């Protein structure tokens, strides 16, 4: 999930979500960067409107109805 956090961080700062930027952010956290994950993330996000995605309010989970019998 760390790469997704990095992408959201960039998004929030209105920075471009590209491989270099994500790698930079993850590296700055002190962790090693997995290039495959970076690549996969950037590719997957290419057609995603992050602003819309995070606006879609998650629906609360309803408690199971009491069994009727």
């Amino acid at each position, binding site marked *: *999930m760390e790469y997704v956090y990095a992408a959201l961080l960039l998004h929030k700062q209105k920075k471009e979500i590209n491989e270099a930027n994500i790698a930079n952010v993850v590296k700055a956290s002190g962790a090693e960067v997995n290039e495959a994950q970076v690549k996969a*993330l950037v590719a*997957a996000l290419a057609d995603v409107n992050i602003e819309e*995605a995070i606006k879609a309010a998650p629906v609360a989970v309803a408690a199971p109805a009491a069994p009727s*019998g």
Partner: protein
Amino acid sequence: MHQNRTKYPQKKAQMYQQLQELPSKYKVIALVRMEKVRSSQLLPLRKKFKGEVEIVSIKDKVAQKSLSTLKIPGIEKLAANLVGQCVLMFTNMSPIKLNILLGKNKIMMAARGGDKASIDVVIKAGNTGITPGPILTDFKEAGVSTKIDQGTVWITKDSIAAKKGDTISGKLATLLSKLDVKAVEAGIVLNSALEDKVIYNQEELTVDVEQYRAAFAKAHQEALSLSIAIGYVTKENVNMILAKAAQQARSLAIEAGFLTDDTKDATIQRAHGQAKSLSGKLKGYSPQ
């Protein structure tokens, strides 16, 4: 004490004879005590169970006399339960089943003073066809508003004369019977039954059908749960298993932050939701 009758009344003789024959024609003899049953209940049952159950209404002494001559194992125990006016039912179906069917065939009857209302007793608005008189007081006491129009008593609006469970007074019972409103649900319950040498008492004859209904639902549900849990595919559960497997894959992809076409948006929402959930717990810090 009794005067010896020189001649048995013909009706009793017939019944005596009937009881000599019926027990050999049917596997089951069931007894209903008439103290809780009115003869008007029997007619619809006779119709309903025609060909399946023969229903004989009889006095205890005649029945005892006739049954005691029969060589049917266990009959003496059944005869011992005969008290007063009785109903005997002869059938080939299981007495428990008969009892359940009787329970399903309850009918609404006119209440007698002291009965408890089985339902909310509603007196409908409209013309009662009754001529005004002292009855107006009865209506008033029952909380039913009336008016007089063209010589008859009209009820002005639907009124509840008794709530379910209320005891119905003799006066109200009379009023209800005049209005032909039935307030009591009457069912027949078997007191005991003899089947294949075994005598069943009232308790043994009573089955909680709802419990069985629930048991079937639960048993099936358990089978469904088990089959899904182990991935044993059948026609009934194949859709659920596919949904579950796909669901597991989605959950795993999201938890791992591995973006797939199906889960990208949900993953971003999840990450953002986690940030929101976390920031919501922070005191004195509001993210900008």
